[in-house]
């Protein structure tokens, strides 16, 4: 299968030996994948540390599920390579099929075998001869696993269709955990659950995996889920990883506007950058590591813009959406005084009169027509203009 004659292919051996020197559990290098004429993955690089939790998040069709299926061994990469624990499993002429990769996999709908009981599902991947006591050993292990995912061991006798969605996902997790994989792949396992159950199940699953020290990769289109679940978030867009980093960094300092908007609500304003200070309709706002000078676009998270009696910025409420715990407020920003007085050259103060969206807990002070005072907290992120608008 593999041609490792040293004279012909010296590089892979070196590459492999280099890879072993890292501590990364998973190493994906320059992976591409086409389906027919459609390029689904356009060169993906990703490293996942031993025991870490990574969320691959992106809109549907971005290629994230395909990436997961490549890691699991359900698909072959067209080019590039994938290594687990430092040894290649795909690429460069190597191919390790799914059943030999020793990874766990939980699909969107759990993919429980409908013809088997819960217990039989969980023990499906177990080798009876490897367990003490054979049959009894299996039974004990199944109980243990059900307990681990907080299910009653008596459920082992039930059929999958007798379980709720959340229970099915836990059984699927227990089944995947049964073989004690070092790497667990979760393909949108919570998306089929309704809101309340989703959060609870996600927490429970996260805890189990963390306790077991299993390296985990979660694929999701839900940015909230990604940010809360993982200690590394990889944002996927259009077949590429747009940004990889810890959740806080990725959320507060997105690499580009699309990432910013995908990960959460964003207030985007035209601004003028000078040094590390951007001037815009919200006044002067500090920017860490500005990418450009002059005209830029400025990104703030809505929660950075607060209603404060002594705030220097004014805006008029256009309309509101009441959600209970908080209210989404659309505000039209007043033209800044500097600009209104016409004292300064226009080009340095682009914008004015923009409509932005912020959040507030108190609906009573945000009636349409009310003028509010605002204050900006923290730093903003600036994006160069050329990223955005064609001239």
């Amino acid at each position, binding site marked *: 299968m593999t041609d490792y004659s040293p004279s012909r292919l010296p590089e892979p051996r070196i590459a492999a030996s280099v890879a072993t020197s890292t501590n990364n559990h998973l190493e994906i290098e320059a992976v591409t994948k086409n*389906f*027919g004429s459609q390029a*689904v993955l356009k060169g993906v690089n990703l490293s996942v540390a031993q025991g870490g939790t990574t969320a691959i998040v992106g809109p549907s*069709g971005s290629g994230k*599920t*395909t990436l997961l*299926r490549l890691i*699991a*061994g*359900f*698909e*072959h990469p067209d080019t590039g390579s994938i290594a687990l624990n430092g040894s290649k499993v795909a690429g460069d002429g190597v191919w390790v*099929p*799914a*059943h*030999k*990769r*020793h*990874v*766990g*996999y939980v*699909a969107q*709908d759990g*993919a429980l*075998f*409908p*013809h088997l009981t819960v217990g039989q599902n969980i023990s*499906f*991947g177990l*080798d009876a001869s490897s367990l003490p006591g054979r049959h009894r050993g299996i039974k004990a292990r199944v109980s243990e696993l059900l307990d681990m995912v907080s299910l009653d061991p008596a459920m082992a006798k039930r059929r999958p269709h007798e379980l709720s969605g959340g229970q099915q996902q836990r059984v*699927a997790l227990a*089944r*995947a955990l*049964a*073989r004690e994989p070092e790497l667990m792949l979760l393909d949108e396992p919570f998306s089929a659950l309704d809101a309340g159950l989703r959060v609870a199940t996600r927490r429970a699953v996260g805890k189990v995996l963390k306790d077991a020290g299993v390296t985990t990769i979660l694929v999701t289109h839900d940015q909230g889920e990604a940010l809360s679940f993982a200690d590394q978030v990889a944002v996927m867009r259009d077949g590429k990883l747009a940004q990889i980093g810890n959740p806080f960094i990725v959320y507060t300092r997105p690499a580009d506007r699309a990432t910013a908007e995908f990960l959460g609500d964003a207030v985007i304003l035209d601004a003028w950058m000078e040094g590390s200070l951007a001037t815009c309709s919200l006044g002067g706002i500090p920017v860490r590591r500005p990418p450009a000078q002059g005209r830029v676009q400025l990104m703030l998270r809505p929660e950075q813009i607060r209603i404060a009696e002594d705030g220097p910025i004014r805006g008029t409420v256009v309309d509101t959406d009441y959600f209970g715990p908080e209210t989404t407020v659309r505000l039209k920003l007043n033209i800044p005084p500097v600009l209104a007085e016409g004292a300064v050259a226009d080009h340095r103060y682009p914008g004015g009169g923009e409509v932005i969206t912020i959040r507030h807990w108190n609906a009573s002070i945000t009636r349409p027509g009310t003028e509010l005072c605002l204050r900006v907290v923290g730093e903003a992120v600036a994006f160069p203009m050329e990223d955005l608008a064609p001239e």
Partner: protein
Amino acid sequence: MTTKLAAPGTIGGTTTAGRGKRPRPPFGVSVVAILAVLIALFSLIPLGYVGVMTAATGWDTAIALIFRPRVGELLLNTVLLVVVTVPLCLVLGVGGAWLVERTHLKGRKWWAVLLAAPLAIPAFVNSYAWVSAVPSLAGLGSGVLIATLSYFPLVYIPAAATLSRLDPAIEQSAASLGLGAWRAFFRVVLPQLRIAMTGGALLVSLHLLAEYGAFAMIRFDTFTTAIMVQYRSTFNGTAGNMLASVLVFICLILLLMEVRSRGSARYARVGSGAQGRALRLPLHAYQLPAQLFLLALTALAFGLPLSFVLRWIIAGGPGIWTADEFLPALLQTLGYGLGGAAATTVVAFPMAYLAVRHPNWFSKALELSNYVTSSMPGIVVGLAFVTVSIRLVPGIYQTAGLLVAAYVLLFLPRALVNIRSGLSQAPKELDEAAQVLGKPPLMSFIRVTLRLTAPAAAGGAALVFLGIVNELTATLLLSPNGTRTLATEFWSKSSAIDYAGAAPYALLMILISAPMTYLLFQQSKKAAGQ
């Protein structure tokens, strides 16, 4: 010959499990694809045979043999038969289904099964019973009578299944828009039955074209009986081949018509999930007439044939149960039925697999080629196989294998449709789940996909079995020396006017067919949503 369950409505309606993205065919699939292509090529033998034979005959001879008065007569007979019988079957089938599913008909649970029961009686047994009852039966009218009574369940079953699954909300909206019950039926319900009706009509037509025994017994000449006569006179002579090519042509036209009239209707599917109970019309004063109508219909279609078979059994006494003739025929029939069913299931699998797991133009074309072949009458398949095996592969001539191969071609759709619906219950995610749990691909395929498909495949196999038990024409042409099946023995005895001697064979065919018919009836209820 009872139920050629091609279920045309479901052909081409594929179910995709997966993620919108279609994976490149992985390991193993190319093997499956090659198998499927081979099967498709094999299935085109009859069509190719007719084409080659027509071409080889030469234009002038072909014209002389095709455009002669006898062909005109046959054409007229065949067309009249189809044109009269199909509407009658539609009226009886849909009417019966409507009474059972949509009215407060008393005893409707029983009627529901009884109306499907005539399918358990092979058409040629029905004909035999009718000729016993009314010896002077002959010609078009008798052909229509027997064919209608034999085949209306082919419309009834899908129509009843569709009606039982039809969301009553549709009728409720019609009512809210001011339509009365009758107008609602014609304007809203009937159009929903389009797939069931066109599919049923096609099935009935194909049966009419393919049936030999039932029409031969009442001296009604169709293309199939005429081809058989030519075969009896010339083996595989030119005149018979030309008749076969006209018959094939008619079949293809019918297929096209069905596709055209079905239109896009099959995409209007019934949503799954909870739905309200079906609306039922009170029958009031019509209760009695409805009961009498159904009583008459089932008495003629089921009661009469059964009672005449029993009459001959009683008249014949113990003398007709000659075990040394009877047992071999039973055993050989069971052997061919089971072997053919198994072979058909095995052959259908790659096709179904491609259609479900890798749906594209290619798998659709393969399926279509199969579908076309399966509309070919048994006599054409028989002729093609006899000729091809004698001339090209004498090694398989007159072997059981060749006969089984013909059965496979004739009944492939029954297996295909069932396995496909079974496979769609076994999405590839389950296969992958098994692999990622450490099972090698073959093992996971066996333990998951194959296991989950088994019930549906067995259901399809049962229907193939039913078809083989009642198959006459291809069996007559292709069976190895010394082979006697229930159908051929029945035919041989009833042709010699040994009606009493034929009765045990008729009874056995009915007894074997009955449970299969019930199974078919049950399955149709489940499959109606697809």
